[in-house]
């Protein structure tokens, strides 16, 4: 990575604006991610899947809209998660391997600024990706239904929840990559994604478990990310409304959980011996 060089105010580590430095790191992270060919491939795959949904929609009489929304949003979610994990886990290790991290940190860039900047860069990348994929889904929806209906507004809410999901996945990938190898970070993040997708069932299991096991299960159930509340794909595919309160709580939850993971990543990265 080449970030920070042009922005650096050599000599005084407190010089310059932290926000500007974070912004610069975020922008460079975004630029590098967009240059990545794998990223383009994944977008192409997502668009392809949305296209496939049109074909499936045509052979699924009377449920075209349902199939397109289900397939399209699921593709957006899964491809986004894959992108988040595979870019997120390499954000720190790649910088160490290329030795560009030392250059960045020798400039007046603090470690926490580096971590936060990376997070915003990756999140920005995913937001752009999601917008592109969402356009594909909406076009597919328009193709099969010929017009948008009022209930299609809930599809936008589902897409917003998917972005919130990415926020948490990015933060987790960055958290694990702050102390682990890329492979292990990918495994940990993906495992948490799967467990988190069943979070409500996990809390159900915890509720019916008694004794010490119950306490441990409850603690685990509340610590793993709750991706199930962020998944309203089936609900909006059936045209069901999403309560406004849920939108508010999910937003708060995603921000707080991401802040928690990023804070953890900062604490670990601050202490990490990079020599």
């Amino acid at each position: 990575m080449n970030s920070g060089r042009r922005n650096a105010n050599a000599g005084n580590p407190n010089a310059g604006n932290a926000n500007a430095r974070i912004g610069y790191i975020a922008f460079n992270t975004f630029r590098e991610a967009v240059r990545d060919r794998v990223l383009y491939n994944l977008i192409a795959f997502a668009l392809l899947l949305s296209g496939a949904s049109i074909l499936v929609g045509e052979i699924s009489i009377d449920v075209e809209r349902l199939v397109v929304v289900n397939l399209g949003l699921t593709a957006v979610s899964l491809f986004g998660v894959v992108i988040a994990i595979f870019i997120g886990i390499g954000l720190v290790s790649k910088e160490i391997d290329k030795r560009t991290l030392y250059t960045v940190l020798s400039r007046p860039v603090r470690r926490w600024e580096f971590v936060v900047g990376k997070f915003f860069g990756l999140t920005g990348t995913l937001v752009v990706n999601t917008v592109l994929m969402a356009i594909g889904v909406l076009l597919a929806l328009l193709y099969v239904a010929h017009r948008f209906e009022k209930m299609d507004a809930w599809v936008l809410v589902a897409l917003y929840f998917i972005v919130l999901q990415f926020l948490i996945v990015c933060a987790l990938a960055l958290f694990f990559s702050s102390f682990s190898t890329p492979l292990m970070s990918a495994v940990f993040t993906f495992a948490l994604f799967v467990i988190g997708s069943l979070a409500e069932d996990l809390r159900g299991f915890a509720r019916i478990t008694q004794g010490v096991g119950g306490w441990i299960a409850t603690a685990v159930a509340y610590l793993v990310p709750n991706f199930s509340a962020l998944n309203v794909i089936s609900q909006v595919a059936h045209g069901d409304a999403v309560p406004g309160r849920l939108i508010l709580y999910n937003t708060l939850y995603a921000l707080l959980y991401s802040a928690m993971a990023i804070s953890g990543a900062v604490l670990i990265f601050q202490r990490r011996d990079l020599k």
Partner: protein
Amino acid sequence: MTATRRANLVAAAALVFSMAGAIATLHAIDHTRRASAAQEALYVRSSKVLRRMSLGYTGLLADIYWTRAVQYFGERHHHGSRDFRLLAPLLEVTTELDPRLLPAYQFGANFLAPKPPNGAGLPGSALFLMKYGIEHNPGQWRLYYNLGFLYYTEFKDYAKAADAFAQGAKLPVTNEYMPILAARMAQHAGEFDTARMLWRMTYESTKDPQIRDNAVQHLLALQVDEDVTRLEQVVEKYREQTGRLPASMGDLERAGFIHGTPADPKGRPYKLMPDGRIEVQDPESIFFITKGLPPGAAPPQPLHQIEPESR
């Protein structure tokens, strides 16, 4: 304080604050999405589709659906709901994903058939579930027991109940009471004893606290029904002998018909009414009773007997 130390402190504080905030928000989300897991689960009702989606992990998926079924019923029952429309499809999906998940059949036999608020009021669905269970688990006597139980309690079909118990009694691994139940069904004999035996077997053959609690409530109600029937017979005998109704339980005791003051299973003495009927002191304290109630009163139902949070 150095910049690094300050950054560490801020990060640690942010970690604690955001963790507490996330957990609190999760509580609020759970409250907003009460029972939504079950509802969402049933956007996909086809077990064939679910089998494909599970990538072969059907056992795990069945366990998840089973947990959802228990929570769905428990939470709705706890809140006094009379609408359990998702219970049948949840149990059907569960057992289609794992036809050998025996507790699901037992749960279905106990809570699908009874009328709301004690069940979904779908005896037909319960019967279908039991037959499906027997088809896939022909060696399990409990399923024949559940089938006979259903025929007896919900359909009052003694012949079919006797047949189900008899079939279960023939299995290599069975329960000693199965042939007795089959015989009793065939004779229609001893209603109270038969019902008591059924509920006792239900209690003993499961570890599910909801089913056990339900069985205990029915056993207590049976005790009251039997006591009231017996006491009213005694009152009638007294009237035949003396030409008048007893004024109190003491009259019956002095005449040698009873010993001591008869009391319900909760220890409250039964009341002798001026018209010779017997009533319980607190009709709301014993659920499912059909006798000993004030005229026109409906049998009390246990709206809040299940506490899923404490299980």
